[in-house]
C-alpha cells in the first residue's frame, strides 16, 4: 500500500504464481529455479526473473535465459518515412521478399534479435516502400508478432486469469467468457464479509474469483461433486496464506442428509461414504480411542529396542513402524477431514448464506433447487450454464415454487474495437457465445402466506406440492 520505498511486494519472488504474456496470449506458471517453461513455441527458464518488478518485459536470449528489456524501447523502426498512396502498382509475384527461408533461419541461429530480423525483412522487401503507411504498419505488426521473442511477467488477477482460461482452455471452464464471469460476481453481490456458496466445475476459476473479491474477509463454502474439490485455478491466483482460512468445502453428496438433518459428522459416517478411504480407514476409526492412548508409549519402546536387535528384526520393525506411521498419518488426515466437514456443515446448517454462485457442467436445476435452501432471505443468486434450455427449466421451476423474485435470464455480448487514427472499426472476430445466466433474489417463505396470486391465508394446499417439485 505504501508506495514510498518498499517495492518488495511488487517484486517477483521464487515460488510466486505469475502469468506470462506475449501479445494476447497468457500462461500461468509458478516461478521455480531451473524449471523449463514452454510458452508460445519457445522454451526458457524463469530464474532470472526473480527480483525484478512485476510487469517487466523480458527478452528470451539463447540458452533460454531471460533478460529484462528497457521499458521504453522505441517502436519506430523505420524512421525513413517513405510510403505509397495506393496498391495499383503492387503485384503479387511472390518475389518481393529477397531473403529466403534459409536466410531467415541463419539469421535466427546467429542469435539476432527479433527487432533486427524484422529490419532485415523490411530492407529486403522490394514492395515495402510502395505500400501505404497503414499497410507498412500492418506489415511490421505482423512480423513483430512472429519474430519478437519477448515475454512479460504479470501478477495474476481475476481479469487476467479469466481471459487466459477463456483463450486457452474454454472447455475446462464450461466456455464461461470473462465478461459473463464479471456479471456473475456483480449480480451475486460478492463482497468482503459475506458467506458465499460456490458450486463450480470451472477448474477453480470461479471459486478463485469469488475469493479475490472477498479479499480474505468472510467465508466461502465450496460445494464439490465427486471425491474432492478441484482448485487448480485457485492456486494460480497466488493468494496469501490467510485467504485459505476463509475457504471451506462440503461434498454435494451430503447435501440431502444435511437438509434432512440426518448428517452425522462423526468419523464413521464420513469414512463409510467416502469412496477413497476404504474399509481400512473405517476399521481404524473404530479402534481409534484405544490406539490413541497406546500409540506413543509403544513407539517409544520400539525406538529403544531397535538398537539392540539384529538386522533382520530391525528391518521388520522398520517396516512395521512405517506402516504404523502411515496408519497414524491416515488417521490424522481423516480426523482433520471430519473436523473440516463438521465446520462446513455448521456454517451451512443455519441456512443463512449471503450468496450462491453455480457454474458447472451438471444440470443446474437440481443443484439450484437444493442449494437455494441454504440462503437467507433477500440474498442474490446466480446460475451459469453454457446452454439456455436448462436455465429455462430452472426459471419455470422457481416460478412454480416461489421463494424468489427478480428472476432474469440473460446473456452478454462482447465486442472489441480496433482504435487507430483513421482505422477504427470493430475487431473482425468476436466470441460467438459466453454462456447464459439466471439470476434472482430470495425472499422468505417461512410460515407466511404462500407466494403467487393474492391468496392471503391458507398456506396448506401449496406446501405439499412444493416439496414434491423439489425432489
Amino acid at each position: 500500500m505504501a508506495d514510498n520505498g518498499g517495492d518488495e511486494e511488487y517484486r517477483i519472488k521464487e515460488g510466486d504464481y505469475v502469468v506470462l504474456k506475449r501479445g494476447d496470449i497468457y500462461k500461468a506458471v509458478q516461478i521455480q529455479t531451473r524449471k523449463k517453461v514452454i510458452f508460445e513455441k519457445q522454451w526458457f527458464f524463469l530464474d532470472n526473473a526473480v527480483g525484478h518488478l512485476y510487469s517487466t518485459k523480458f527478452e528470451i536470449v539463447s540458452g533460454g535465459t531471460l533478460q529484462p528489456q528497457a521499458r521504453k524501447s522505441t517502436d519506430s523502426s523505420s524512421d525513413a518515412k517513405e510510403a505509397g498512396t495506393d496498391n495499383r502498382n503492387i503485384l503479387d509475384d511472390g518475389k518481393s521478399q529477397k531473403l529466403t527461408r534459409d536466410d531467415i533461419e541463419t539469421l535466427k541461429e546467429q542469435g539476432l534479435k527479433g527487432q533486427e530480423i524484422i529490419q532485415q525483412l523490411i530492407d529486403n522487401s522490394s514492395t515495402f516502400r510502395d505500400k501505404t503507411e497503414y499497410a507498412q504498419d500492418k506489415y511490421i505488426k505482423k512480423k513483430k508478432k512472429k519474430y519478437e521473442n519477448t515475454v512479460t511477467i504479470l501478477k495474476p488477477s481475476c481479469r487476467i486469469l479469466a481471459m487466459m482460461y477463456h483463450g486457452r482452455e474454454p472447455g475446462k471452464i464450461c466456455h464461461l467468457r470473462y465478461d459473463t464471469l464479471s456479471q456473475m460476481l456483480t449480480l451475486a453481490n460478492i463482497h468482503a464479509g459475506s458467506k458465499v456458496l460456490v458450486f463450480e466445475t470451472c477448474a477453480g476459476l470461479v471459486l478463485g474469483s469469488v475469493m479475490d473479491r472477498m479479499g480474505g474477509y468472510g467465508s466461502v463454502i465450496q460445494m464439490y461433486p465427486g471425491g474432492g474439490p478441484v482448485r487448480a485455478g485457485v492456486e494460480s491466483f497466488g493468494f496469501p496464506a490467510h485467504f485459505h482460512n476463509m475457504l471451506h468445502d462440503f461434498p454435494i453428496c451430503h447435501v440431502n442428509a444435511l437438509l434432512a438433518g440426518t448428517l452425522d459428522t462423526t468419523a464413521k459416517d464420513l469414512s463409510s461414504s467416502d469412496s477413497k478411504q476404504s474399509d481400512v480407514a473405517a476399521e481404524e476409526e473404530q479402534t481409534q480411542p484405544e490406539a490413541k492412548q497406546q500409540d506413543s508409549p509403544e513407539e517409544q519402546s520400539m525406538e529403544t529396542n531397535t538398537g539392540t536387535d539384529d538386522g533382520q528384526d530391525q528391518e521388520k520393525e522398520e517396516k512395521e513402524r512405517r506402516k504404523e506411521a502411515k496408519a497414524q498419518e491416515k488417521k490424522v488426515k481423516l480426523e482433520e477431514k471430519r473436523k473440516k466437514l463438521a465446520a462446513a456443515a455448521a456454517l451451512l446448517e443455519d441456512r443463512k448464506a449471503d450468496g450462491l454462485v453455480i457454474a458447472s457442467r451438471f444440470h443446474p436445476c437440481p443443484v439450484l433447487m437444493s442449494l437455494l435452501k441454504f440462503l437467507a432471505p433477500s440474498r442474490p443468486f446466480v446460475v451459469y450454464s453454457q446452454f439456455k434450455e436448462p436455465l429455462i427449466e430452472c426459471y419455470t421451476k422457481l416460478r412454480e415454487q416461489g421463494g424468489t423474485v427478480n428472476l432474469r435470464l440473460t446473456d452478454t455480448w462482447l465486442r472489441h474495437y480496433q482504435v487507430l487514427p483513421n482505422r477504427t472499426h470493430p475487431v473482425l472476430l468476436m466470441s460467438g457465445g459466453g454462456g447464459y445466466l439466471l439470476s434472482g433474489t430470495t425472499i422468505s417463505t417461512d410460515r407466511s402466506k404462500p407466494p403467487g396470486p393474492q391468496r392471503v391465508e391458507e398456506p396448506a394446499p401449496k406446501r405439499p406440492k412444493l416439496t414434491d417439485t423439489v425432489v
Partner: protein
Amino acid sequence: MSFVEYSDFIQDGDVAIVYLSHDNMMPVKVQQGAQTQTRYGVIRHSTDLIGKRYGSKVTCSKGGWVHVLHPTPELWTVTLPHRTQILYTTDIATITMMLDLKPGSVVCESGTGSGSLSHAILRTIAPTGHLHTVEFHQKRAEAVAEEFKEHRVDHLVTVRNQDVCKDGFGVAGVADAVFLDIPSPWEAVGHAKTAMKKHGGRVCSFSPCIEQVQRTCEALADHGFEEINTLEVLLRVHDVRTVSLPLPDFGPDPSAEKQPEQPDSSEKAPAPKHTAVTVKTTTPPREIPGHTGYLTFATKPRT
C-alpha cells in the same frame, strides 16, 4: 443495513427496497412513524417494516402485498433518483473486473453523477479501500455525499466538488484504478496518471461516441499508457415463455386410409387431434438498448 454489509432485520434509518414487481421497485428511507404509498396501499414503517426480516412479505392497507429487500448496489442502480444519465449493472460489472477492483483498492472516479457506479465500487473495495470521487456540479456533489452518509458508506469515500479536467482528483500517487465518465476524458488523462500509484494501475474511460474514444486513446498512448483496449458489452434479456405453435390441417391422408389394418396406422390415428404444439422458449424484448458506451481500458506502467 449498509451497502457494504448484510443485516437480517430492518431498522429505523435503513434504506430498504420495496419490490412491487420486476420492473417496479422503489427505495424507501425507513423512519419511525413514516408512511409510504404504493399502488397496493399504505406501508406503515413502524409496524410494517421496522423489526421485520429483509425479504419478508408486507401486506399493505388495501390487502395487496410487496416484498422488502435488502439494498444492494444493483437494486440501487435500478431505483436511484436520476440526476444524470447513469451506468447500468452490465457495464459496471465489466468495469469492476477489468479495473482489477477488490477489497483494499484505492479508486478515483469522475464524474460522480448519480452515484450508480460509486455504490458498486464502494461495495467491492470495502472494508479497507477508498474512493475519491470528483463531481464539478455542486448540487450533485452535495446530494451524493448525503446519500453516502445515509447508506453508511461515507467512511469509504471522499467527494470533491471540482473540475477534474482542470484540478485533477485532489490526490496524487495513491490510486490503483481510475474511472472517467466525462464529456472530454482526454483532458483528464494526465490527471489520471498523476493520481495513480507509482508502480502502476488500471484506467477506464466510458464514452458514448467513437470520436471521444479516438481522442482518449491518443491521449492515453501519449501519456505512456499500455494495453489500450476498447470494448463494448451489451445485455440481452430473455423472456421465458410458453408458446403454442398450431399445426396446419393437411386434410385426410389417403395413404393412411388405404391400409387401415396396418399396426402403425392405428397408432397414428389419434395424432390429428393435436392441433398445436406447446414449446418452452424465450423471446427477446421487442426493443433492447443497443448502445450504452464504449469502454476503453489501459494499464499505467510503473514510472
